[in-house]
């Protein structure tokens, strides 16, 4: 038998039109991003470090000072951003230009799986029920693509993308957002977090993401009785990570139950008057982000 030509050597069209449709999807994504000045991914690799709370506070702080801000909850299976930003639960309006995002506190435009799911329902996909490992990640990437490309974000100054935990998911997100303006990696002082976030840094550097930064969450606890700040973790992983990798540490955020309490009721703590060290640190982080993006003077 003669040698077959390879797929790429066979140039005639097949009529299946699959590559054309994938290309059209990516073009739609690029068109949507062309109206967004900066896309900032808030990631970690590690779960439970406070990515969503920091995303919500960044989005709210930016919107409160008059910037046009979108917040995309890329954590499809553990969505929380809509609640933290008090996004309207009114039905999302569909138009030929896409799906209108929900509007949250300070006018942040929000899309989250939380807005689409029935009460207390998990993310489950329709059949077939077996062999989900074959197609599930493809479907989730497709869903995320629609969150970014099919939402009528309008012109935005900043789109904050709250990434799910897991370096694999970060990689998938980068396939849809290949040129983020910045990736803010949330970590804690713990050694475990340091190990995981170091892997994310390697991944992001290999992908050529130009601006990486660290935010150390839960960096200390201020005793409300005596006012002294004590470390929550024995380790100093965040600073060690910054020193070892050269990724700048933009913020050290103290642990404050008020952060969770405020996002629980959909009013991020940065919207409260100055005075709380946690809120001040989050505002300083917002300012640092804008400075780095050259949106404000240092």
């Amino acid at each position: 038998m003669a040698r077959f030509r390879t797929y790429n050597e066979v140039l005639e069209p097949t009529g299946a039109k699959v590559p054309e449709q994938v290309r059209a999807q990516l073009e739609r994504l690029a068109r949507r991003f062309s109206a967004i000045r900066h896309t900032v991914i808030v990631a970690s690799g590690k779960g439970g470090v406070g990515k969503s709370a920091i995303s919500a506070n960044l989005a709210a702080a930016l919107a409160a000072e008059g910037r046009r801000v979108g917040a995309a909850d890329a954590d499809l299976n553990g969505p929380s951003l809509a609640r933290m930003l008090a996004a309207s639960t009114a039905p999302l309006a569909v138009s030929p230009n896409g799906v209108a995002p929900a509007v949250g506190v300070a006018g942040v435009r929000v899309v989250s799986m939380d807005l689409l799911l029935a009460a207390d329902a998990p993310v489950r996909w329709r059949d077939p029920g077996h062999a989900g490992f074959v197609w599930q990640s493809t479907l989730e990437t497709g869903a995320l693509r629609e969150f970014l490309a099919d939402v009528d974000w309008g012109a935005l100054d900043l789109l904050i993308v709250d990434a799910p935990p897991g370096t694999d998911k970060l990689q998938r997100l980068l396939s849809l957002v290949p040129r983020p303006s910045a990736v803010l990696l949330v970590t804690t002082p713990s050694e475990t977090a340091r190990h995981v976030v170091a892997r994310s840094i390697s991944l992001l550097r290999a992908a050529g993401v130009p601006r990486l930064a660290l935010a150390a969450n839960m960096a200390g606890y201020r005793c409300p009785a005596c006012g002294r700040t004590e470390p929550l973790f024995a380790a100093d992983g965040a600073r060690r990570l910054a020193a070892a990798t050269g990724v700048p540490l933009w913020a050290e955020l103290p642990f404050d139950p008020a952060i969770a309490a405020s996002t629980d009721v959909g009013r991020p703590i940065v919207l409260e008057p100055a005075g709380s060290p946690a809120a001040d640190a989050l505002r300083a982080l917002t300012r640092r982000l804008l400075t780095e993006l050259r949106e404000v003077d240092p």
Partner: protein
Amino acid sequence: MKFLCIGCDTVMDFTERQLPGDGTFAAVFSCARCGREVAMLANPMETQLVASLGVRIGGRTLAEQPMELVRQQLAEGRDDAFVEPAPASRGAIRWSDDARQRLANVPGFVRGMVKRIYSDYAAERGISLITPEVMDRARADLGLEGM
């Protein structure tokens, strides 16, 4: 994926697709030179993999709808998660009881989109009554597998 007619060393053309049941997806390809036809049968897992890409083998008649993939595939979506645009000029279009019943079987999460697509189909063709037969025709014409 390309199908090569070995004898003719020619790429076979996509000609037809079907969902014969059991989650099987069938795509027919034929050789323009010798006329040979082959049917590619995808098992339910492979069918779902292709569907997960948000593409339709053979191309689309109907443009991709906003959040179509999520709306088609999410199992437990909120019934009132989306509101469709107001119909342009569909005052004259009615739904037969049978068609209405069939539409009621569509999950609420995606029902609004499906209803609009059928209504648009009818309006564009001057059809004033949507029946199950019209729905079948629309499914075939527009490639609405799974709707």
